[in-house]
């Protein structure tokens, strides 16, 4: 499977507030930091490392 553009990713990560959160929490994360959770329109999205995700998490990206 090839990497394809995701509309959801573009919509969520395109928000300036989310981008600031990424810089603070994702880029600044150290070992053992809490996972980054982005909130948009009442929904919560956890940022997960693709290489380390399990099958249930992979399936839930399809929700």
């Amino acid at each position: 499977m090839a990497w394809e553009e995701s509309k959801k990713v573009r919509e969520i990560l395109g928000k300036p507030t989310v981008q600031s959160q990424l810089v603070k929490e994702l880029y600044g994360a150290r070992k053992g930091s809490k996972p980054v959770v982005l909130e948009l329109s009442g929904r919560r999205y956890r940022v997960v490392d693709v290489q380390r995700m399990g099958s249930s998490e992979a399936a839930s990206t399809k929700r």
Partner: protein
Amino acid sequence: MDLALPALTVLVLAAPGFTFRQAYLRGLRGLPVRPRAFAEEVAMGLLVSALLHTIAVAAAKYLAGIEVDFLAVGRLLSSNYGSNGEFLAPTVAAVAGHRGKVFGYFTVVLAAAFGLGVIAHGLVRRSAGVRDVWLLGFRDDWHRLLTEGVFAQEANAGAPVSDVFAEVSAVVPMGKDDYVYRGVLLGPQNIRFDQNGELDRFILTAAARRKLSDDGNPDEQRFYEIKGDLFVLRYHETKTLNIRFLALVEESESEAEGAAAEKGDPEAATQADD
């Protein structure tokens, strides 16, 4: 004319082979590929052309009853029209007298070459084993690495992963210092390749930077946001490059409820209940 006409004839005869090769290597979406040596590509193009013409000539004879005048083709290629030019008129008549058929033949062969190339591209691209054979490879190393190679981890996840983005980090020397630039790559369409299939640049959002030498200082704020909508990171200006593929996983209602309770936010917990 002595030089130009044989050259033109070779070009026209070889065109289906080169059309096939381009369609095979790049597909419909224009895969960024690293070109082979000129002589190698010409040899492959001529070989494919010969094969396509062999099939097309046989098909034209059996399906449409069209016979190719190989003698006229030979004369055009060798530019040999007899000592007194006595074969020039018959050769010209062989082409001009059947220009509709000649045009139709090349149109069909070129279209078939393009179609077959695109189909072969699609089939080979789906099969990693065949694609790794030297002769059949697309030479799209960078494109494959960045857009396909990493997704071998599907084996780990056990299911296809969607909503993927990448965190790109690069060390860029500026003056006496090295800076770490980091940004988000929203999708593969934000990766640009040059005409040789080499990685050229990334178009990033949420860009930030810090000095590499600040790594050892635990009190230092790690990254400073670069204000702007898009940040262009040129690969040739980087010393090292790191890419981490991430995915957005939507939390279920129970997970959101648990997180709200952990924060001690009853309102959010109620919203999650709703």
